[in-house]
């Protein structure tokens, strides 16, 4: 008889969702055969799920809290930039403001971070630049998760020929170098707006999620509870949505959150190279690129958008890391 291992009972780092340590009031339940009514010893322990457990874990992580705070701030900046600055990021005054140095006394004013080579407020441009980065990051992530998640799910669930075809397509896309692919794709657009960049990144990025999803679905599909669902007569839709998806989605979420920061960085890279966003869109990448010319005389022109970009990317990656740790302590 396969014994349930001793270790199970005091697993040092219990995986959320399979922890045996937190049987609510096991002592109380021990008398179940005699009396079905329980003493309230167990009431204090609420029903917990993987997400509940993960949330409990996350709330205690300072890194998570800091990154979430930063992200909330960034998102607010993206939605309501005018609430953070009165200055117009597009207003150029080459006469008065040309490469004016940062003025620390001008708190939250137009001159706080200084002015760029066209006499535009760097502070305002940093604030307004968040919109492009955050939009690209979030929309691309949503796009790849949807597209990659769906194809990965279909490939993993149906297997056989469907899987073979999808997997080969994934392999082909995986082989395209990101920059080269983006260059080719974006060249096809008359005006390279945020949406054009989003399109290019989704087309080139969904395969990563699809692979993760396919692997997770393949594992979950074997589980006894999925077999049990089939034995009950559950249809494809129910099996996928009730049984497989909730159990396979965790690694996808982890990969997606970490990748979000990467998409923002990629957008900036593309814009910096001149194949991403174009003026008049305000983007940190474009600003960094144009600051190159004056880097010797006015390094602050590059510093502020670059710092904003770094902090944003870091915040998302840190959050992704924390989420991963909380959802799957084994990966640590």
């Amino acid at each position, binding site marked *: *008889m396969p014994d349930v291992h001793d270790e199970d009972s005091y697993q040092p780092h219990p995986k959320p969702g399979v922890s045996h340590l937190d049987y609510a009031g096991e002592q109380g339940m021990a008398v179940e*055969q005699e009396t079905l009514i*329980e003493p309230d010893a167990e009431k204090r322990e609420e*029903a917990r799920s993987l997400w509940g457990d993960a949330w409990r874990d996350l709330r205690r992580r300072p890194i998570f809290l800091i990154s979430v705070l930063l992200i909330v701030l960034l998102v607010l900046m993206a939605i309501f930039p005018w609430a953070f600055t009165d200055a117009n990021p597009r207003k150029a005054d080459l006469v008065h403001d040309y490469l004016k140095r940062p003025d620390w006394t001008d708190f939250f004013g137009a001159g706080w971070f200084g002015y760029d080579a066209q006499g535009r407020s760097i502070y305002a441009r940093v604030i307004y630049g968040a919109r492009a980065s955050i939009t690209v990051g979030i929309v691309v992530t949503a796009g790849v998760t949807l597209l990659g998640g769906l194809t990965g799910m279909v490939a993993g669930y149906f297997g056989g020929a469907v899987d073979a075809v999808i997997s080969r397509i994934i392999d082909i896309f995986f082989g395209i170098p990101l920059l080269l692919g983006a260059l080719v794709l974006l060249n096809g657009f008359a005006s390279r707006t945020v949406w054009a960049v989003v399109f290019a990144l989704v087309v080139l990025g969904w395969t990563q999620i699809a692979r993760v999803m396919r692997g997770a679905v393949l594992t979950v599909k074997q*589980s*006894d*509870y999925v077999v*049990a669902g089939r034995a*009950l*007569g559950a249809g494809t839709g129910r099996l996928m949505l009730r049984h497989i998806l909730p159990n396979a989605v965790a690694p996808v979420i982890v990969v997606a959150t970490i990748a979000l920061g990467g998409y923002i960085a990629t957008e900036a890279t593309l814009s910096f190279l001149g194949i991403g966003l174009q003026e008049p869109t305000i983007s940190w990448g474009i600003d960094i690129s144009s600051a190159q010319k004056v880097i010797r005389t006015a390094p602050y022109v590059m510093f502020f958008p670059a710092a904003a970009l770094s902090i944003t990317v870091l915040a998302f990656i840190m959050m992704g890391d924390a989420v991963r740790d909380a959802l799957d302590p084994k990966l640590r």
Partner: protein
Amino acid sequence: MTANGASALGAAMPEEVAFTQEVPRGEPILEIRDLVKYFPLTQGVLFRKQVGAVKAVDGVSFDLMQGETLGIVGESGCGKSTLAKVLMNLEQATGGSVRYKGEEISRLSGSALKAVRRNIQMVFQDPYTSLNPRMTVGDIIGEPFEIHPEVAPRGDRRKAVQDLLDVVGLNPEYINRYPHQFSGGQRQRIGIARGLALKPEIIICDEPVSALDVSVQAQVINLLEQLQGEFNLSYMFIAHDLSIVRHISDRVGVMYLGRMVEIGSDAEIYDHATHPYTQALLSAVPVPDPTARESRDRIVLTGDVPSPANPPSGCRFRTRCWKAQQRCEVEVPLLVAPSWLAGAASHDSACHFAAERESEQSAAERESEQSAAERENGQGGD
């Protein structure tokens, strides 16, 4: 196959009517004939070609009677779990037939299959993996009602779930808890409640207690027995623990390498086994009695179980059998009652040389009787 064959079993057939007739107690409710399940072995990634097959179940026939418990024993790789999956229609049979109340069910699909599923349910081995960790106990036990809404009207479902929890000995208030908050034995009760929800007639138990602690096993066995009486269930009880199978089963079938080698009532199998494999299996079971240590007459089998992808010709057990002759190599023994045996020994046994073994117990008894007699007579030796 009856007049309305598999093709007619589609939407046109009123599924409610299909399986409602009562089967009298002791009559076959499930008839399995020459059931075959091969898993193809393939090579190549893009262009797969079949290079062989794992013959997991290879020509198995037996009946499950209404109201009985049929134990199926055998070692790993004998095909007992595959048999369960094929009977549950979780795997498509390669050949042979499975008839439920006279209807062929092994090739059903769609709503006809769904109707059969209401009546044949399963309890899984591992209570830690057979419950969806993202669903509450109420959702898990209530899912059968969502899939088969005709069983319980929407408004009554919560009540129905709570009743089921009560039936399996769990507090009905646990309805909003998640599986990980329960111990193994409690989870297995949840699995049993899920299996009972649709009021099936047949429950296939695949090693339902082997993952549980010894002290909890008895609780679950008792529960299964109690439910059988209460709901008039027929069980197919698959296990490798021979003492538990003996306790719960009315009849027992022994499988080896995809074949049924012997089947009969529990007494016929345990006390009058005539197939050498059954005898070896029974003799190997550790007996929880240290006094039996010396008097035990264990048949130690040599070698390993051959690969099911390439089973021996003739009798599959011949490579490890001490009785094997030329005949066993060429002629497949049929599962029939050997004509040369009488009494309890005359039950279905797939061996050309089926014969009762001088049972170790009776041998030991005789020995001790002998020595007692000798002591009484005051004379030693023989």
